[in-house]
């Protein structure tokens, strides 16, 4: 019995340490954003809102916010359309193309982002697209689509396909039966997929580093370029905003489905 309780205590201590490890860096970011001095220290010697005030005067950060929003929304739209249609098609008919699709969609996720950045930079330069929003959206779509695709495959698998057959039997065309029968059942899944695609794009920075130029830089790229020079609390302020956006997205997604299901989709 004593050995059992020792094991339990060790196990508990183990996962509590990991729990702290997972959240500590995020806490550091949030806390240091309230620092008063120009140096990042944890915990800060003095607290203030100075850096939040000066954030709203900085045009390069505000422009980066707009860029991130634009690229994120673009990625969400393109990745959702590609992922939903492909998952739907595969559900109707899991033929040769369907079986090749899953590995083809997954493979980009295993290639180091730096190699992607290089490859796509070379590629988009051929079409004079380097630095454009289009190039950023397409690159991010490559990473976001697998998520939407696998979320939607899992959603479609739970859908009762006899309902669609029934709609067809009652004379509804393909578009009408999709809108009235399938869509209401999977709209939560589509929403979560789009949200994840948006977040992936918002947070991605290695490909954006290669593909953006001075006017299309996204937030993580600007943050990175500042970090290269010095560690200013301004980066913490921006990072706090990014963490808050992710937090909001998780709460929204968890409300639309549930956290347990969502977590399983992310792997």
């Amino acid at each position: 019995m004593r050995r059992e309780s020792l094991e339990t205590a060790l196990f508990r201590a183990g996962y509590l340490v990991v729990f702290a490890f997972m959240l500590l860096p995020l806490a550091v970011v949030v806390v240091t954003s309230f620092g008063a001095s120009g140096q990042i220290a944890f915990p800060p010697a003095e607290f203030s809102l100075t850096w939040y005030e000066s954030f709203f005067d900085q045009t390069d950060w505000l422009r980066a916010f707009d860029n991130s929003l634009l690229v994120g929304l673009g990625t969400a739209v393109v990745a959702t359309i590609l992922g939903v249609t492909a998952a739907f098609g595969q559900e109707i008919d899991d033929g040769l193309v369907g079986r090749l699709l899953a590995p083809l969609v997954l493979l980009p996720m295993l290639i180091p982002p730096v190699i992607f950045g290089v490859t796509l930079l070379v590629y988009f330069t051929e079409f004079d697209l380097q630095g454009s929003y289009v190039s950023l959206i397409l690159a991010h779509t490559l990473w976001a689509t697998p998520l939407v695709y696998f979320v939607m495959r899992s959603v479609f698998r739970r859908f009762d396909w006899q309902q669609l057959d029934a709609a067809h039997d009652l004379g509804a065309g393909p578009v009408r039966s999709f809108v009235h029968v399938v869509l209401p059942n999977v709209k939560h899944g589509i929403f979560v997929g789009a949200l994840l695609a948006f977040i992936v794009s918002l947070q991605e920075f290695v490909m954006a580093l290669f593909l953006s130029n001075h006017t299309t830089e996204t937030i993580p790229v600007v943050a990175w370029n500042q970090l290269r020079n010095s560690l200013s609390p301004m980066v913490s302020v921006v990072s706090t905003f990014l963490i808050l956006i992710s937090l909001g997205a998780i709460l929204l997604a968890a409300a639309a489905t549930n956290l347990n299901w969502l977590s399983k989709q992310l792997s």
Partner: protein
Amino acid sequence: MSGNSNATASGAIERLWKPLVARSRSKRALLLMAPLVIFELLIFVAPFLILLRISVSEAGERGTAYAEGTWSADAYANVLTSEVPREVIVHSFTIGLIATAIAVAVGLLYAYAIWRADGFTKSLLLFSVVLPLLTTLVVKTYAFRPLLSPTGTLNSLLESVGLLSTPLEIVPGLAGAIVGQVYIVLPYAVLAIYSVLATMDWQLVEAARDLGASRPRSVLEVVVPQAMPGIIVATVISFAWSVGSYAAPFLLGDDVTFAMRVEGQILRDFQWPTATALSVVMIAAMLVVISALVAVLSRFGGEVEYA
């Protein structure tokens, strides 16, 4: 002339399309999958063919990235024989293997904890994984600098307790880069293992314990083999991302990884053939190591072994 090539192109498409339709039950399904397939071909496959082509070109004259239309294996010879690229590759693989081992071991423990927890604790533990997963790499890595640097929180804490007289050099250094990299891949490792554990029957473990297995033994002999598909996915993801890591070694490490070198060669030195050849060699080496890891791990998986 162009009309002629158009005709051959559409002829080729038709030759490709017909057997596809013949092998599938529904043309509509193919049409629905077509956008994604075309997207992957245009934005993933085609760029990689160009990357391969550049890697076998001659180095460019002054000011150009590479010499178009030339063929040469110099870049590969350079990558495979000279000292610096080899050191860079070894360093990247060191980070990759150590970070993967830690991430998978810790990930297994944490996934097991999530699986066994319920109610609010379970949600909290899941949340602690999902939030870092959806936070940008930049944010995740730089936070370790004020924590682990020689003048940082950890060192001043240990010094004030009297455990240390000289500060630990964690950041910048190999240890710092690995801590940062583990933090980046751990959420993925946890969730990959958890999603497999979640489908597993707890009664199997209880049965093993009723039959007299100690708790560590029941985990090693019942849980681990069952979770092996998840462990394999966790290993592949952690390894692939850690070998190609860029942000963590840059901000927290003290040595050049292959990703940092490729970045420099492309954006600053304009040596595209060498950079692309290095990328191709790295992908090939990664594939070899990943297949070896999968082969070794799947020997332990699937069936429960009774020793």
